[in-house]
């Protein structure tokens, strides 16, 4: 059982939805990313997605595009992100998922990547432009090294496609809440609950929902229907705004703890409300 599966099992045993924040590694630089990841974990992140920046991020909206550009300008590469994970793993137990595009992995070499990623302490890999039909080469390697290769489903996925993807799913399946690219949306689609319910009914793995979720209210709404809530662009936005300022880490932490609180409150869990002041 991988760390991702264990984490979901532990949360599900008391009815809690996972919070999965996403940040782009290397934005504004890898040292700050190191501190941010620890802060995310401290403030309630159950799993963490680390974006490996790519020059042509076709699934990302402007917020993540800018984050990737900043990270690439600082020389962030897949190899350096693996080094970062190795450093983080000395003190961090939260599952880490690399969120990236296929070309950097392909160029690095699928086998070498799976081995190095596992060794560094990566738990899952999400490769947004690698559809399951084309993923056999990489999946063979990630399976061999016990990494969860995580696939995506979209509002446009037919039921037969949902079934196909689910037969290959490991770790969890990532449901893309909206059509289009990543980025905060004012409202989530009205049929989101129904779509997620249908997938969960037949899914052997937990279902996480991401894309467009930017507020504690939306996080709570998604927590009421899904196994995990994934929040990315809203965090990138905070990092962009407070980058280089002394309260950056604190601001990010406060946002994440707000999300966690909203998710726990939605499920009526203990610890949802802060203790009253003495």
């Amino acid at each position, binding site marked *: 059982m991988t760390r991702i599966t264990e984490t979901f099992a532990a949360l599900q045993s008391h009815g809690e939805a996972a919070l999965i924040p996403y940040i782009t590694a290397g934005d504004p630089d890898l040292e700050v990313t190191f501190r941010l990841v620890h802060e995310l974990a401290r403030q309630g992140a159950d799993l963490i997605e680390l974006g490996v920046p*790519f*020059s*042509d991020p*076709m699934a990302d909206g402007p917020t993540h595009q800018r984050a990737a550009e900043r990270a*690439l300008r600082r020389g962030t*590469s*897949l*190899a350096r992100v693996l080094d970062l994970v190795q450093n983080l793993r000395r003190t961090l137990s939260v599952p880490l998922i690399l969120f990236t595009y*296929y*070309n*950097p*992995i*392909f*160029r*690095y070499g699928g086998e070498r990547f799976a081995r190095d990623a596992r060794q560094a302490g990566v738990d899952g890999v999400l490769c947004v*432009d*690698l559809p399951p039909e084309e993923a056999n080469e990489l999946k063979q390697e990630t399976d061999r090294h016990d990494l969860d290769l995580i696939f995506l489903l979209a509002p446009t996925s037919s039921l037969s496609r949902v079934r196909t993807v689910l037969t290959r799913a490991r770790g969890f399946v990532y449901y893309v809440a909206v059509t289009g690219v990543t980025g905060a949306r004012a409202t989530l689609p009205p049929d989101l609950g129904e779509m997620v319910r249908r997938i969960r009914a037949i899914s052997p793995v937990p279902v996480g929902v991401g894309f467009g979720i930017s507020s504690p209210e939306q996080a709570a709404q998604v927590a009421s229907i899904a196994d995990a809530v994934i929040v990315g662009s809203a965090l990138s936005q905070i990092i962009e705004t407070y980058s280089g300022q002394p309260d950056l880490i604190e601001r990010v932490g406060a946002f994440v703890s707000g999300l966690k609180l909203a998710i726990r409150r939605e499920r009526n869990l203990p610890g949802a409300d802060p203790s009253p002041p003495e």
Partner: protein
Amino acid sequence: MIGREARKQIRQRERRLPDYLIACVGGGSNAMGLFTAFLADSEVRMIGVEAGGLGEGKNAASIAGGHVGVLHGSKSYVLQDETGQIRDTHSLAPGLDYPGVGPELSYLHDQRRVEYVTVSDHQAVEGMKLLAETEGIIPALESAHAVAYAALLVPRLRSDQVVLINLSGRGDKDLQGVARFLGELH
């Protein structure tokens, strides 16, 4: 379609197949349109002309300078750095200004069925001028890459050899860009 038409017309006019096909290659739709109709004719040599732009680091020649990669859903030659990041490209011809090339053309390169060459921005503009002055046709800057290479190749051929150049667009759209380019040179 353009390949089937070209094949039919050249056989009507010359009573045989051409010795050379020359087409520009960006993403490769122009070239594949022509080449597909002649792939089985081993006597027909095919030349794909990539955008050499302004030279090293400022071009869009994916086969000449790229490595195998996966971009926009296909595995082909891609202009990229050693960490898999896609490189910035340049060509005066917007239709060639792309960091990848179609997978069929990549395969035909590996099979050595298609030979690839590069032509610079400057040579392409000369190709455009040549066709305008001699035939009264203003070719698109993309196709002008093929014309420019033909102008280099033809003097080395016998007079009975037949060369087919793919002109896939008009150059009216490029005139301002060409004027600016020539202005910068002077």
